[in-house]
């Protein structure tokens, strides 16, 4: 299982907002455990999709110089179950950003239309741990923004179909 819960950015306004999509597919193994008779996308992984969308938005706002770590889920409210074949659309916006961290607000919908079915409302806070976790041991280099994440942003910025 790869720890990447968004597939593609469809909008990215630096220091402001971002929208990413994730396709939910039966090829994802864990769906078959939760549950065998009725596969659903777990709420916790929907939160992670928002955390990754917003985390990249917050990271990019300071040129990926900070280790952006999820520190608080202010509120995550779920309105509908998500099934294989659904496309999740994560829209995140930065509410506040400082040297110490950021707070974001976002919605998750089952489609790109403004009135697409609402899956969840999520408010998160990130901490820039280099500035905050005095005493905790973690590596010096930025282990948070791996190529897996920066590649998502690059693909958005260099969007072009590659003809065969």
């Amino acid at each position, binding site marked *: 299982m790869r720890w990447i819960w968004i597939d593609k950015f469809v909008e990215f306004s630096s220091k402001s907002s971002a929208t990413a999509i994730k396709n939910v597919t039966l090829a994802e193994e864990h769906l078959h455990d939760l549950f065998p008779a009725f596969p659903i996308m777990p709420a916790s992984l929907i939160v992670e999709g928002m955390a990754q969308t917003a985390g990249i938005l917050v990271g990019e706002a300071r040129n990926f110089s900070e280790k952006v770590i999820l520190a*608080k889920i202010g509120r995550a409210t779920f309105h509908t179950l998500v099934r294989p074949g659904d496309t999740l659309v994560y829209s995140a916006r930065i509410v*506040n950003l400082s040297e*110490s*961290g950021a707070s974001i607000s976002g919605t998750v919908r089952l489609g790109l239309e403004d009135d697409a079915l609402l899956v969840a409302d999520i408010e998160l806070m990130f901490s820039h741990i280099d500035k*905050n976790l005095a*005493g905790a041991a973690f590596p010096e280099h930025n282990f948070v923004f791996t190529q897996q994440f920066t590649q998502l942003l690059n693909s958005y910025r260099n969007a072009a179909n590659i003809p065969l």
Partner: protein
Amino acid sequence: MAMSRDEIYKKVRAILVETLGVDEEEVTPTAALREDLGAESIDYLDIAFRLEKAFTTDPAHPFKIPRGELFPENLPAVMSDERYVKDGKITPDGIVELKKRMPYSDFTEFDKAPSMESAASLMNVDTIVNYMQARLNA
């Protein structure tokens, strides 16, 4: 912008209720943020952010709280410095340092019996209201 202390208190209370998930009744003037209301370091950032938003009247000139001005930075590092805390007791130098870092806290009770325990209650609801009053009436 002239705001009465009571108006400021009500806004601060609403923010604490929302941020810390506590009931309005639990938010009293001397309620210690960490000990009584369960605030963690991420909550201090959350509170500062919400205060900034709540007290901004002109979006062109947003109200900003500089880092460390309301909530002192790196207090754990101070508390483990031998000059300030020795054998679990706060030294005279430590008391001076605390007062320097927390100018909006009321040290009356603390001065009667300075200790690690009474230091923990220095950051309370009144501290925030005092800070906001000072900033708004400046």
